[in-house]
């Protein structure tokens, strides 16, 4: 199993541009999550999904959108990039939701200039 994979690894965006961060897991997990990590901080939850077609907001959802059309994929969309979205983005998955170990992808480093 590859686990949780993310693309791209690194990206530079100009203010106002849009992009999609890709996340795929091959563990047949139902739950998937997007977190962001700012320098010197812990991770904060952006959005999560409990299954295909079902998504919900986390702590810091503003400026982002998600979709979950398949069990495997959970892309994160930035529509109008802002410098405040400069961060490292992590995707994670777990089989269940509550009381389950979450497994993390390698992260996408995003710089907005």
């Amino acid at each position, binding site marked *: 199993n590859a686990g949780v994979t993310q693309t791209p690894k690194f990206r530079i965006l100009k203010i106002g541009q849009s992009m999609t961060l890709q996340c795929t897991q091959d563990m047949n997990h139902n*739950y998937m999550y997007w977190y962001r990590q700012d320098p010197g901080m812990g*991770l904060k*939850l952006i959005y999560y999904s409990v299954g295909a077609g079902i998504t919900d907001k*986390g702590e810091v959802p503003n400026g982002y959108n998600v979709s979950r059309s398949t069990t495997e994929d959970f892309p994160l969309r930035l529509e109008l990039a802002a410098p405040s979205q400069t961060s490292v983005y*992590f995707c994670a998955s*777990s089989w269940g*939701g*509550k*009381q389950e*170990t979450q497994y993390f992808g390698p992260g996408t480093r995003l710089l907005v200039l």
Partner: protein
Amino acid sequence: GIQVEQSPPDLILQEGANSTLRCNFSDSVNNLQWFHQNPWGQLINLFYIPSGTKQNGRLSATTVATERYSLLYISSSQTTDSGVYFCAVERGGRGSTLGRLYFGRGTQLTVWP
């Protein structure tokens, strides 16, 4: 949300030394995980430990849920232990929120040869 505080924020050790990292949380939890973020940014799950004690090689963890803290012990530290250690919790009871983890700010560990 739930507050998660980790201490110390920074720790510098010589190889072979032992250390204890602490995580305090402000509410009841039904999920607590310890992660190691290596210098390349990868998050590795160390323990899923909402209560009790677990050991894995040189690492062990104890969570005392009734007193709202968890400890991570690293014995005979090695240079490869360097990185940031995060504690993450999911609020329990009626406040439980489907696997939403709240992270502390981490302990930056540096182990010198």
